[in-house]
């Protein structure tokens, strides 16, 4: 579903991402770990075609994102560290707007509200302006947009950083539900615990290269921390 082939990005000659090869299947949750500047966000931006690769290709559902910038975006949903919404619009209006712009304006009001139910947002909140929303609520709206869009792949850029443990846990279980339904997920995070809990695989990045890939079922949480720190040690 999400595929990187020798994906490389240089900024003014210095490498941000070095020959990344990655294949994420439907239902998989791949967590990218690594220090700031390791190339995690660059990878997400390359999949979004927000930056041009220096070489290599990023593919979504087999389509090169630079060749099909609009079509490949139909299959994905992007949730950044902070989901940005229009503060003068209500939660529902935001959802309706983003969903319509994603090309789906065929939902009834009731169906829209059901997306709020699914992500655990109260219906009263749907009618409120999002200026009053907490960060956790905004992230849930992000998921609701992904659900309404019927995204087949999720690109999550540190989606849980700054969330309290409860909100973070709720967010993870929503991701889990979607991956159970067959959605492929690429998530960057600093949270080893979260990566182990919700990821099916984790990749450790350093200086723009993927230095290790592990299946979360095969390692314990302490193992993951040890391996991660070993790699971070220069």
């Amino acid at each position: 579903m999400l595929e990187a082939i020798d994906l490389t990005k240089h900024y003014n000659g210095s490498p941000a991402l070095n020959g990344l090869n990655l294949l994420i299947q439907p239902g998989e949750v791949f967590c990218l770990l690594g220090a700031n500047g390791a190339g995690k966000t660059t990878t997400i931006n390359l999949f979004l075609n927000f930056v041009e690769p220096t070489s290599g290709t990023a593919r979504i559902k087999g389509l090169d994102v630079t060749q099909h910038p609009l079509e490949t975006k139909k299959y994905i949903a992007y949730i950044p560290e902070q989901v940005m919404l229009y503060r003068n619009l209500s939660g529902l209006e935001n959802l309706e707007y983003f969903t319509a712009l994603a090309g789906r304006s065929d939902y009834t009001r009731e169906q829209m509200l059901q997306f709020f139910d699914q992500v655990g947002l109260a219906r009263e909140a749907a009618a409120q302006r999002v200026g009053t929303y907490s960060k956790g609520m905004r992230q849930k709206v992000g998921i609701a947009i992904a659900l309404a869009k019927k995204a087949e792949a999720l690109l999550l850029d540190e989606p849980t950083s700054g969330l309290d443990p409860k909100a973070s846990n709720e967010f993870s279980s929503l991701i889990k539900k979607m991956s159970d339904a067959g959605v492929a997920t690429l998530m960057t995070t600093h949270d080893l615990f979260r990566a182990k809990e919700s990821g099916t695989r984790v990749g450790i990045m350093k200086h723009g290269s993927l230095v290790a890939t592990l299946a979360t079922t095969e390692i314990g949480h302490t193992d993951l921390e040890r391996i991660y720190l070993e790699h971070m040690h220069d």
Partner: protein
Amino acid sequence: MIATIAKKEMTEMFRDGRFRLASAVVAILLLASLAAGWKQYANLKNQHDTAQRAERTNWLGQKPKNPHQGAHYGVYAFKPKSQLSTVDTGVDPYVGVAVYLEAHKQNEFKFRPAQDAATSIQRFGELTAAVVLQVLIPLLIILLAFSTFAGEREQGTLRQLLSLGVERTHLSMGKALGVAGALAVVIVPATLIGVFALALTSGSGLLAVDVARTFLMVGAYSLYFLIFLALSLAVSAWSSSSRVALVVLLSFWIVNSLIATRAFSDLAGFLHPTPSEVEFDTTLQRDLADTKGLDAKLDEIKAGLFQKYGVNKLDDLPVNFRAISLQEAEEHGFTIFEKHFGNVFDRFEEQNAVYQWGGVIAPLLAVRSLSMGLAGTDFAHHRHFTTAAENYRRTIIKHMNDDIFIHPTKAGEEYVADAELWKKVPEFQYEAPGASWALSHYKTSIALLLLWLLSGTVVVAVASRRVQA
């Protein structure tokens, strides 16, 4: 898609207190200026109609007297107020609205409100609807549009929109439509109220409104607003931040509405200077005093008449030679007045041309020229009326002199005409020229406005295609 984007933009704007305040202020100013313009129009139209009727009554009511005294008695001709002067008073306050038509001289116009303006505020200029449309609405457009792209980029919502696979051109079209829609809420009601108010004043309902000119004026201002809309969106798409966008757009607004107007009037005056009033009078009087050609011509005519009727004394002629000498003197004057006034008028028109070309830098100059033209308050219309009034003056004089001509008098006698003669002079009728005549003077402005819109559209298309998250 585009409609959805437009609707969201409008919803956001209407919920924004700053937008509501700015729109309310502009809407109130527009309505107030229209109301003031309408009141002035209604008053002046009434006054002019009354005065013109009174002039006719006075003319017809003259006591029996020599026709030449009738010509001296003269009449006032009032320039009819055009309906659209409600919107744009143009040069009327400066060039005057009435002219005294009398024997021997072509007068300058009188009743110039600008000359009578007592306070400095009045001198600064009135707040006409034209000023609101030309200066304030562009400012409102800038305030509505400067953050459309740059603001969303700062908020991070642009990134999310682009991640949805939205076409950038749809985005800018939707935003353009949204701002246009919000603007329409401010302008359309005022426009409709204005048109209806005019229709009511005119007395004969909507049919009496000059439809062609009204539509053209709406078109001209729409064009002007679209230019500002396109430029604002383009700058917003191009700027690194909404602050930069606002500064760039406000700078352009200042050049457009404050600097260029002044700079180009000065440039026009410098390139095509008009003589001072003293200079004008001196040269005019000098030419009028030079009657050598006239005297020779009169001698020639006199000799011809003596020969024709076989007489050698003026008193023996079966026609009144005084009429010929009066008429010839007038015609000697006509050419000189035509030359001197024509010369000054031509300078004004050259100045107007320079001003119109200023539209290359500031679209305001183009739309201002065009607006006055369509309102019938520009210099071209003034000149058109001046010519008609001058022709009427000549008609009066000709009637008087023709009457003297067929009533020969002996030395010491005086011929006296009565009301029959006054009635023979037709009433002064003035028909303002049509809309296409008005447009024909503003080809430069129209072309420049279209060019601005075209380049604005190209720039916004390019800029929105390049928008980066």
